[in-house]
């Protein structure tokens, strides 16, 4: 039996559907990441799971029981769940009291609270801040207090809403390490909303992609990132090349696809004549000045239309009859003197192409 389950869950605000028909099952010990662009409904879903809001339709089940119960029962259920809000707030009191409040509300003895809180402050690296007013802390520290406060009550479910948004990279990676540590230590369910898909990939067992209030795909991270179900997911998971074409032949799942008169080969089971979109990650495209002799089935000549540096990598767009984006290292780009107008060969494997139906 899943610990958290939603059935045909809808949420509506100001006449607009914010969540549409969400069916989600999360088992004990599972880490589930909700990814999706800002405004997709991630926070709304977490709030419904934590019983902070009431759904417009559908049901949420916690440990098999409908959460639409008396306030007393809901309180008991809610006490088994912790939620770290996207913009965490601290109470205007000491760090210690902030972390202790959940335990106090559960009627724990002060000795037990002291041991528990001190242990957790040590885990989150805030031991020295015990007596400080939590309002004087920095953004990263506030986030750590919020996580400490949430895990102090030893919840069965930890809900995290964009735990590293609004943080600098150093604080963000500390928080991520902390979350990874929490996941390792306790067998709790973690449901985490994030718009950082790589964070989802690093921390979660399973990922659900939420776009415009709909759970468009859920599955393992590899599946989501390499086999997106539709164009929206493909765009969100960084498939920068999404090119429309038509299947012109398919023999034993090796299909030839016509894109603006250029033929590429891809592994897919779409039938001849079907209108499809070809998805490809820019890092799967190899760029060379001469035709490579490799096992890759696709090698297209084209001219570079623009290049732009992005950290240690260089993003190159090649006009091969259709625009194709590739990622090369800055070093390779310099060695090959890649610039606008350079003629290059773009090589990619038939298996690195993911074909989806065109809508």
């Amino acid at each position: 039996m899943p610990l958290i389950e939603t059935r045909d869950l809808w949420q509506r605000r100001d006449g607009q559907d914010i969540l549409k028909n969400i069916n989600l099952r999360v088992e004990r010990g599972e880490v589930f990441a909700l990814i999706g662009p800002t405004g997709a409904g991630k926070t709304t879903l977490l709030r419904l799971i934590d019983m902070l809001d009431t759904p417009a339709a559908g049901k949420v089940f916690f440990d098999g029981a409908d959460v639409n119960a008396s306030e007393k029962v809901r309180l008991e259920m809610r006490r088994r769940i912790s939620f770290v809000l996207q913009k965490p707030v601290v109470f205007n009191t000491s760090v210690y009291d902030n972390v202790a409040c959940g335990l106090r509300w559960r009627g724990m003895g002060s000795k037990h609270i002291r041991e528990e809180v001190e242990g957790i402050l040590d885990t989150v690296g805030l031991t020295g801040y015990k007596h400080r007013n939590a309002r004087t802390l920095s953004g990263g520290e506030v986030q750590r207090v919020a996580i400490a406060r949430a895990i102090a009550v030893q919840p069965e479910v930890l809900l995290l809403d964009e735990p590293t948004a609004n943080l600098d990279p150093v604080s963000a990676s500390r928080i991520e390490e902390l979350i990874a540590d929490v996941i390792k230590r306790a067998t709790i369910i973690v449901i985490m909303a994030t718009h950082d898909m790589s964070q989802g990939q690093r921390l979660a067992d399973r990922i659900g992609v939420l776009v415009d209030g709909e759970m468009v795909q859920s599955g393992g991270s590899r599946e989501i990132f390499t086999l997106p179900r539709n164009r929206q997911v493909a765009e969100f998971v960084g498939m920068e090349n999404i090119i429309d074409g038509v299947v012109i032949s398919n023999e034993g799942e090796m299909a030839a696809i016509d894109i603006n008169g250029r033929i590429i080969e891809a592994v897919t089971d779409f039938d001849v004549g079907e209108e499809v979109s070809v998805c490809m990650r820019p890092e799967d495209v190899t760029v060379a000045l001469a035709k490579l002799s490799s096992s890759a089935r696709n090698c297209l000549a084209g001219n570079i239309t623009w290049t732009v540096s992005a950290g240690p990598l260089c993003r190159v767009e090649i006009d091969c009859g259709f625009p194709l984006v590739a990622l090369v290292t800055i070093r390779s780009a310099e060695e090959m003197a890649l610039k606008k107008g350079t003629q290059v060969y773009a090589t990619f494997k038939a298996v690195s192409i993911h074909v989806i139906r065109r809508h």
Partner: protein
Amino acid sequence: MTELWNGLVKAVELIISLDPEVMQIAGRSLMIAVSSTVIGSVICIPVASIIHFNRFRGKRFLVSLIQTFYSVPTVVIGLFVFVFLSNTGPLGGLGFLHTPVAIVIGQVILITPILLGLTISALSGVDRAILDTARSLGASGLQMAVLVVKEARFAVVAAVIMGFGRAISELGISLMVGGNIRGFTRVITTAISLETSKGDIELAMALGIILIFIALVVNIVMNRIQQR
């Protein structure tokens, strides 16, 4: 002008020499106003929380009504309390008329709208995210209300101090239901009124200075609180 200057000098003398009559009147004033404020706060802070935390029909109207009564004239309250506590009134049997208790009752009624209204405003100022956080951490309704009052404590204390300021400076209630009985219900404001009419400007001024001094202390405390 000379009369004013002489009055001021005499007033300072009365204060410095801790004149028994002046001190007794000031002490009684403080005692009555503090009692009213404590009783008013004990009633109004929980009631304000109940109003703030519950949704019901006419809530907005109720809050507007409470705010309207911020500036209710003290003589009107004096009149009502007098009618209730007078021998022929419904509570006449209690024998409270012309006692400090009657003044306290009147002052509690006077400051109730201020305490309620300003406490509701203070609680409304607490970030919604604080409520969500408390709820998500498993706070019950009562635990949440206590937390929110704690979060709004500075604004709530400011409301209490405002109430105290209104109580100690009022004249109408003390005069009408206290009766300005020497050594029993005479407070600063009633004494000033009486001494002025008798022509004892020095005593009236000494009491006036004390009242202003109390107002000054209250203001300093309030500013301190609001700067935190």
